């Protein structure tokens, strides 16, 4: 286990170094961040002076070395031009919004996909199964952007039962200003509903289909036939014997998809003006805030590696026959 974790950390470091190097190398293509900081009247010379002060005119390897040095020695990922705060602080301030959005979505997916998927596998010919399957095709093929706008127009503009943008009322979870949560206020929860639904439309059909096909496959296996032959109750065969084994691949996919979901929050957050990391990322791209971009990508790379590692470890616990590489 120890060797496995060490290897994963090393992988993560390499990934982060490569990503930051790539962004540094192409940073000129993003545009000029100084333009966004000054009015149109400011002369080119004065803009150059500001760029000099910000260190943007240094040779690219020099800038890169400085970034790595600060990151390694001080844990300092630089300063955002747009927010005028340390990048890490900006990212941490935006993380709770995204995490809550993803949590809410994951909850919707779990609560709906498990029973629906299992039901569709057990009763493939019932009208509910047919409806679920055809509806899920629709969900997969509709872009999140469109779903979100449709939801806003129906629930916010037409029926006026849910708010259309932002996080609503938030409260400070730990009393230190880091985690502003919308989960503890009615208003905050109301604001969470539409973004979560629109984000879940992407993954929910996938999981229903995945669970359904896995379950159907498991139901055909020898040991299930054996269980039937033993005369076990259908309840026991389905829920204990079949369902548990269905879950294994589902959990792996879930782990990966949660990571991917963080990436997909981009569009949802944009449409709902959700002040999370995806929104922050888009702002950084639009305003050429390269410093924040690099820091964000490095943090995301780290996060991905952590999530995948945790999933791999969990997998090992659930299925003892799978041994993690590196352990004896």
């Amino acid at each position: 286990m120890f060797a496995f974790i060490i290897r994963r950390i090393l992988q993560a470091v390499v990934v982060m170094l490569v990503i930051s190097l790539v962004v540094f190398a192409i940073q000129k293509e993003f545009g000029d961040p100084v333009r966004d900081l000054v009015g149109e009247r400011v002369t080119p010379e004065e803009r150059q002076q500001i760029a000099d002060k910000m260190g943007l005119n240094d040779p690219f390897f020099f800038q890169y070395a400085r970034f790595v040095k600060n990151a390694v020695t001080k844990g300092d990922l630089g300063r955002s031009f747009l927010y005028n705060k340390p990048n890490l602080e900006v990212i941490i301030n935006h993380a709770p919004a995204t995490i809550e959005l993803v949590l809410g979505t994951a909850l919707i997916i779990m609560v709906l996909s498990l029973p629906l998927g299992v039901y569709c596998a057990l009763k493939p010919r019932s009208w509910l199964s047919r409806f679920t399957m055809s509806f899920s095709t629709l969900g997969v093929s509709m872009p999140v952007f469109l779903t979100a706008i449709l939801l806003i127009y129906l629930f916010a503009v037409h029926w006026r039962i849910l708010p259309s943008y932002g996080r609503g009322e938030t409260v400070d979870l730990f009393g230190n200003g880091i985690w502003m949560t919308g989960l503890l206020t009615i208003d905050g929860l109301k604001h969470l509903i539409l973004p979560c639904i629109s984000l879940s439309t992407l993954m929910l059909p996938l999981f229903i289909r995945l669970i359904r096909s896995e379950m159907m496959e498991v139901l055909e296996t020898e040991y299930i036939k054996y269980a039937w032959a033993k005369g076990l109750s259908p309840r026991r065969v389905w829920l204990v014997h079949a369902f548990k084994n269905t879950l294994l691949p589902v959990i792996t996919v879930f782990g990966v998809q949660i990571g991917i979901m963080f990436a997909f929050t981009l569009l949802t957050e944009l449409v709902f003006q959700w002040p999370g990391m995806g929104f922050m990322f888009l702002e950084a791209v639009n305003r050429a805030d390269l410093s924040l971009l690099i820091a964000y990508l490095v943090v995301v790379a780290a996060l991905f590696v952590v999530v995948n590692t945790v999933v791999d470890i969990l997998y090992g616990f659930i299925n003892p026959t799978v041994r993690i590489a590196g352990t004896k």
Partner: protein
Amino acid sequence: MKKLLLIVLGIFMVVSFAASAGAKTFKMGLDADPVSLDPQVQLSGGMLQLSHWVFDPLVRWTQDMDFEPRLATSWERLDDLTMRFHLRKGVKFHSGNTFTAKDVKWSFDRMRKSVDFKGLLEPFDGCYIVDDYTVDIKTKKAYPLVLNMATYFFAMDSEFYTGTDENGQPKDAILKIGESFALNNASGTGPFIVTNRQHNVVLEMKRFADYWDTNSPGNVTEFILSPIKENATRVAALLSGGVDWISPVPPQDFARIQSDDEVKLVNINGGRIITFQMNPNRVEAFKDVRVRQAIVHAVNNEGIVKQIMKGTATVAAQQGPKGYLGYKETLTPRYDLAKAKALMKEAGYENGFEITMMAPNNRYVNDAKIAEATAQMLGRIGIKVNLKTMPKAQYWNEFDARAADMMMIGWHSDTEDSGNFSEFLMMCPNAETGYGQYNSGYCNPRVDELTIAAQSETDVEKRTAMLQEIEQILYDDAAFVPFHWQNHSYGVKKNVRAQPVINAQNFPYIGDLVIE
């Protein structure tokens, strides 16, 4: 029992209604929120809007382009170089300090140190205190735009910003990057006090109880500004009742807002001109006035205003809009395809030629669509256009490098004066003086001469003649391709009386806003 419940409910409703009658919360959704709380660190529309809410200028623009006294109650010209301002008495800052002449001088001096503003303040010699409620503002040469500039002189609380913050840095440091007290704290004399600010999420303000302007009809007690970037979301926020006011309104949603029972659309003419410049240093043909005329004649800018802008712009044929000194009634739009073709033939380009064109895609209203339409229109006179559009973060560096044969630029005159357009867009580019900073290469010495002369001409009649002559020359020379002046559009709830507080500068005076 039921009756009792009804009575209790009734009483509760009356009480809560009475409590809310005095308090009016106003929610505004804009495409972006102000970048900081320091009115002097960045010269941008968003910062100036905020300045009008939290601070007060010496004078401000009225809807009909006149000056309205704010912190200055009256003013008089002492000589060619000096303007004397008499200041309002009994004005308090948010901090409780009393406003006096020293605050005006302090703010003026600080503004001169700001990279963004020092260009605007170039013509000024200084601000001199006469007594506690009188200042003299002197210019280096005779300068006709002192009052126009006084709309920028917002008074900051000099005592509040004096001293050092916890990092040992002066509180009034003007910083683009880094922490500074002034970036995050504000004390002005304006109608609203900032109570909470989360950049890119929300800006909350409440009405300043000791606001000096007791004649203001404004009844907004709480003012919440949310940036809503996405056009569709911003419109939905208004239609769903989430906000009371949105701006800008995307042209494609005008009909939707106009047809709604609870919201309305309010428009006012603005002063931002949208143009394409032709670079004669890159394309030999652009040196020929006939070719330039052909291009201007080929562009159907009236059609663009109707189709792409949905009528929310005023068709232009010159730089400054109506109401500016240089505006000349006789200069009218010139779309005429047959004439354009004839001009091309006359210039020997009947077979056309190929050019490159660049435009931003997130800077001006429908900028990329306008560029596409233009490219297509030029195709009709045989000019093949290779168009590239890009986000503004990338566009301005391309513009600086004059990277295409035709480039789009919009301009709003900082001084609300015609001369400013020529200084930046049409004077011969000169790195030393900074004139023509956004000119693609058109150069006419007469335009330079007139523009410079107009800068120090205080006789309005003579000045008007000069500025009009400039417009005429540029028209005859087809120096640029004019499109339109963008209107400012606001979508507001029906109970919000927006009309009286808006202006051509797009600085809605929310302090005076009445909500019914």
